[in-house]
């Protein structure tokens, strides 16, 4: 077991945890925004997947990781736009639409991948890394935490920014009331539909960027069905975070570690089938849910379309 405690092993484990946790963080933050506004975004898996595909294609043809993130985010927004149109504008069932969007974009991205890449399976070059001067030289933790793709630092900053936004700004107040008491928001002269649409589009952007990170930085290539439930874990994170972005960050770190264990244990030469380790993150979700079940909080108007004057 000595190998488990060596510096390089710990460094690579934590580094892997950050890489694996990033898409979950972005998905969780995105889902949190939607849920605050009263939209249960079951389609987030589809947003991540389409974001991953668009992000990979953009980065592959342009050689720019930033353009990859941008296009990934826009791809996620396309799916989110469908949610906004069908669920918020037309008031269709959010669960039915969410499932169909997830299934549909699973199929669509797999088809597109088949047509474009199934013969070549191209890979991207390793993502550029920004080492924070000083901090990155700390033993063990330095290389693990402070030498990442710049997007990671932006995501952490975003977490705290959202914390401020939710608590101290009108935008946060509007989101909150769109989910808790939409009629009150409407009476105050703010459009519920516009607030919710904006929330869902933001979710789509964040989930799409998360997907693009997963494909471009995490894997270096796009594989069909690659998100493998990450979007759903994002929903769990948002559910358990009770509206606090910082808790999404902690949760994402926790799941990131259990995901990173999958590869780390194999590297360390410990002989258990990958399936056992793959169970870790999901077992973790269930464990957390069982322990904190009574504390999970969702807004009262979650999942309900808003129709003015209807009670």
């Amino acid at each position, binding site marked *: 077991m000595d190998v488990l405690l060596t510096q390089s092993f710990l460094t690579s484990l934590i580094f892997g945890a950050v890489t694996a946790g990033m898409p979950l963080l972005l998905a969780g933050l995105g889902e949190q925004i939607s849920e605050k506004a009263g939209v249960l975004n079951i389609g987030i898996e589809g947003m991540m997947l389409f974001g991953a595909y668009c992000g990979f294609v953009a980065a592959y043809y342009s050689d720019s990781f930033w353009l990859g993130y941008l296009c990934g985010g826009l791809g996620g927004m396309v799916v989110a736009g469908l949610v906004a149109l069908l669920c918020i504008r037309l008031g269709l069932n959010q669960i039915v639409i969410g499932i169909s969007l997830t*299934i549909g*974009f*699973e199929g669509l991205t797999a088809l597109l991948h088949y047509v474009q890449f199934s013969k070549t399976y191209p890979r991207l070059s390793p993502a550029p890394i920004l080492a924070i001067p000083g901090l990155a030289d700390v033993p063990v933790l330095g290389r693990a935490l402070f030498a990442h793709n710049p997007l990671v630092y932006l995501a952490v900053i975003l977490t705290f920014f959202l914390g401020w936004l939710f608590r101290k700004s009108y935008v946060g107040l509007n989101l909150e009331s769109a989910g808790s008491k939409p009629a009150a928001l409407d009476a105050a002269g703010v459009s519920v539909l516009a607030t919710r649409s904006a929330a869902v589009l933001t979710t789509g952007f964040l989930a799409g960027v998360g997907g693009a990170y997963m494909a471009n930085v995490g894997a270096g290539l796009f594989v069909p069905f690659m998100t493998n439930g990450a979007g759903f874990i994002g929903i769990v994170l948002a559910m358990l975070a009770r509206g606090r972005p910082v808790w999404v960050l902690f949760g994402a770190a926790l799941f990131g570690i259990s995901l990173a264990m999958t590869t780390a244990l194999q590297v360390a030469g410990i002989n258990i089938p990958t399936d*056992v380790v793959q169970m870790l993150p999901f077992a973790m979700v269930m464990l957390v849910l069982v322990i904190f079940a*009574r504390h*999970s909080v969702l807004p009262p108007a979650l999942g309900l379309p808003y129709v003015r004057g209807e009670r």
Partner: protein
Amino acid sequence: MSLASETQLETLAPHRPGGKFARSIGGAVLRILLPVLLALVVGGIILLALGKSPFAYYSYVLERGLFNWIGFQATLTRMVPLLLMAAGLIVAFRAGIWNLGGDGQFLLAAVVTAALAPALIQVMPRSLMIVCCIVASVAVGAIWALLPALLKARYGVNEIITSLMMSFLGISFANVLVKLVFRDPTTTVPQTPDLPVEDRLPRLFDTTVHAGILIALAVIVLVHLMMTRTAFGLKLQIVGANPRAAVHAGLNVAWLTVATFALSAGLIGMAGSVEILGVWGTVRADWNPAYGMIVVPLVFLARFNGIGVIGFTLFFAVLMIGGESAARRIGVPQHYVLVLVALLLLFLALVEYLDQRWRKRVKD
């Protein structure tokens, strides 16, 4: 989470069976056929964009899945797991419970049957072995849904998430069981010991279709009768329509939630068992047909009607079987069927919406 939100979140099903269901047969046919047509048209446009001829694809699918005798038998065989899973989902959805963990329940039950069957056949006659396997698999499916059921019943934790998580967990766990516990030491690819063909479910007459189709049809009809004609079914429908009203009516909602989940997952477990007993005889490592998510749209298309779902299952089985041949022949991957199902569901919801608006306008 307040009870009120739960109530309404779950009563958004496209159409609740009610008194006006038979309002107009023409309207109903239109509301079912129109989404199908629209999905096929938009799907065809996607095929065109991929450089394939939609007409060639669709006619090949029809020919291979429906008009070709071998293909048609494969279609009927494929209907078996789909029908049983649909039965499980109808029970849950009518009670307003979103059991989306079908894949995990199905696979674990399949593994249990695959492990039990070759052992049991040594000590008992085939018919008894089949009954034992099915009962065990039903139990396993139900047990796998217990945690989401209890969390939902006790704390109101959203069962969509918990059942999905248990599904991911179950898929990996099934693989662990195949690779580590029930592995047949004589094979190179990890799989459970093979159940000899003569010990599987009997074939019907001279066809390749196994007796599971009779079980599946009986179950779906029984489930439909149970949901529409018995007190228990009525109770579940009340819970589904309005849990708060159900509490006021003196129903034990927590218990009914657990019972619904167990019944639903048990039926899905039965699907896994029958699929192994009838078709495969073994579970290979990493085998996962992933029917769970795909059956959801079928159940919605049939508007939770057990009889109606038979037709949609046939339609979908044709698509799957024909699509598998087309994947090899025409070079359109199987994933295209996923797109088609998603489109179907989307247009179903849209047509439903337009229909409601139109009806409202007529009323005003």
